[in-house]
């Protein structure tokens, strides 16, 4: 019931039981008018690195001031167009399944988040990051770094070309594997909409076992992190296509354009 914190090597069963217990508890605490929240709980013990890294005091509710209601201005001077294609950064083609990921960044009312920075980083097709602390004995790919950036268009859209990353092992517990994912960083039109998250691929058998993915208790919210296969995005003789829309809710700038400027 209460695994010892210092246990060096809990089993998947211990972690899975911890996930189930926490999901049960959160569901009981949720009420009809205050349902499950979208974001993970920071004190999600099955992801053991949270233990000493979550605040124990309640966060202080604060009204955003001017600076928090806007975001830094990013533009095409900041990001080169070729940064959106992770397969052309080296002399040769990277190994793996070439994919296109496209979608729109929207606010909670469906308005596009325009001209804002999207950053991604990921493992290669073998599940290995270029990061020097990644000890996974899988091959590096000399033709793949796994870092990309793009600035959203006027309709909030982004489009990236990359390689499908592999799953990789980590040391949270014995035989722990992360589902294949791509890390994404977003800026909203207000800084309070800032979001760093991970995009997953449909049907991954590791979903149920992964305490990071399962730290989101609401199943509908979890599924928002899973891109959908989209045959309209796939390109013949070239790449498999995925669509992933992202929603950044929260306070908006008080000097947004009038509503009728947008066509949602």
């Amino acid at each position: 019931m209460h695994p010892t914190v210092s246990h060096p090597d809990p089993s998947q069963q211990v972690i899975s039981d911890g996930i189930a217990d926490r999901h049960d508890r959160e569901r009981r605490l949720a009420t009809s008018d205050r349902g499950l929240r979208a974001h993970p709980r920071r004190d999600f013990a099955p992801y053991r690195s949270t233990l000493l890294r979550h605040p124990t005091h309640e966060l202080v509710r604060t009204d955003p001031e001017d600076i928090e209601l806007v975001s830094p201005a990013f533009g095409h001077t900041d990001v080169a167009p070729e940064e959106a294609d992770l397969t052309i950064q080296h002399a040769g083609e990277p190994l793996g399944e070439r994919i296109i990921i496209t979608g729109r960044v929207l606010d909670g009312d469906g308005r596009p988040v325009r001209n804002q920075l999207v950053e991604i980083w990921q493992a290669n097709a073998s599940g290995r990051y270029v990061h020097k602390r990644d000890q996974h004995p899988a091959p590096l790919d000399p033709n793949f770094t796994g870092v990309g950036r793009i600035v959203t268009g006027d309709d909030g859209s982004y489009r990236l070309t990359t390689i499908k990353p592999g799953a990789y092992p980590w040391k949270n517990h014995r035989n722990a594997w992360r589902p294949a994912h791509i890390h994404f960083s977003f800026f909203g039109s207000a800084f309070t909409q800032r979001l760093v998250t991970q995009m997953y691929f449909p049907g991954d058998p590791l979903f149920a076992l992964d305490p990071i993915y399962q730290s989101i208790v609401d199943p509908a919210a979890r599924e928002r992190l899973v891109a959908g296969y989209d045959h309209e995005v796939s390109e013949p003789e070239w790449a498999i296509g995925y669509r992933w829309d992202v929603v950044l809710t929260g306070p908006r700038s008080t000097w947004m354009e009038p509503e009728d400027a947008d066509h949602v």
Partner: protein
Amino acid sequence: MSEQHRPLGQTPSQTVGPFFGYALPYPGGPEVRAPWQPDAVRVHGTVLDGAGEPIPDAIVEIWGADAAGLASTERGSLDRDQHAFTGFGRAAVDRDGHYSFTTIKPGAMRDGSAPYLLVTVFARGVLHHLFTRAYFGDEPEANAADPLLTRIDPDRRGTLVAEPDAASSYRFDVRLQGEGETVFLDYGTER
């Protein structure tokens, strides 16, 4: 137009993980103001966990107004030109959990409120980033009247204040948990 009345669901957060070091930091990221500029100030500190140990895999962002208290609309946060002030900076911590920015001391944004930097902390083991504010210890009068600071328990208020530790330098440690835990802020974006 009916979509306007049906709010879309928030995309959930996930941890930044341990392997952002070759992706998120960028040259000039911590230099919101070039260090040689006469109005440059240093804002630095250590990110600590609940055992008081430095966190070696955190990344910190600051976002602040200019000296007049206005948000910059200048581009170029990722590609600094040494002159434009964009207000945004990003610094990964070093192996001792220490980060360091150079920026300018912002002006107050509203009458009756004190100047501050918005500070955002990401780390492995942090499933959803944490917002806090760094006010300035050499603004005692403004701080004593600030609408947020005055609402905070006096025992914890100091965690929101960057204290001068040298000429043109302020220290702002971030404690994620435990004794001296930093006050973190909820802008209505916790759901």
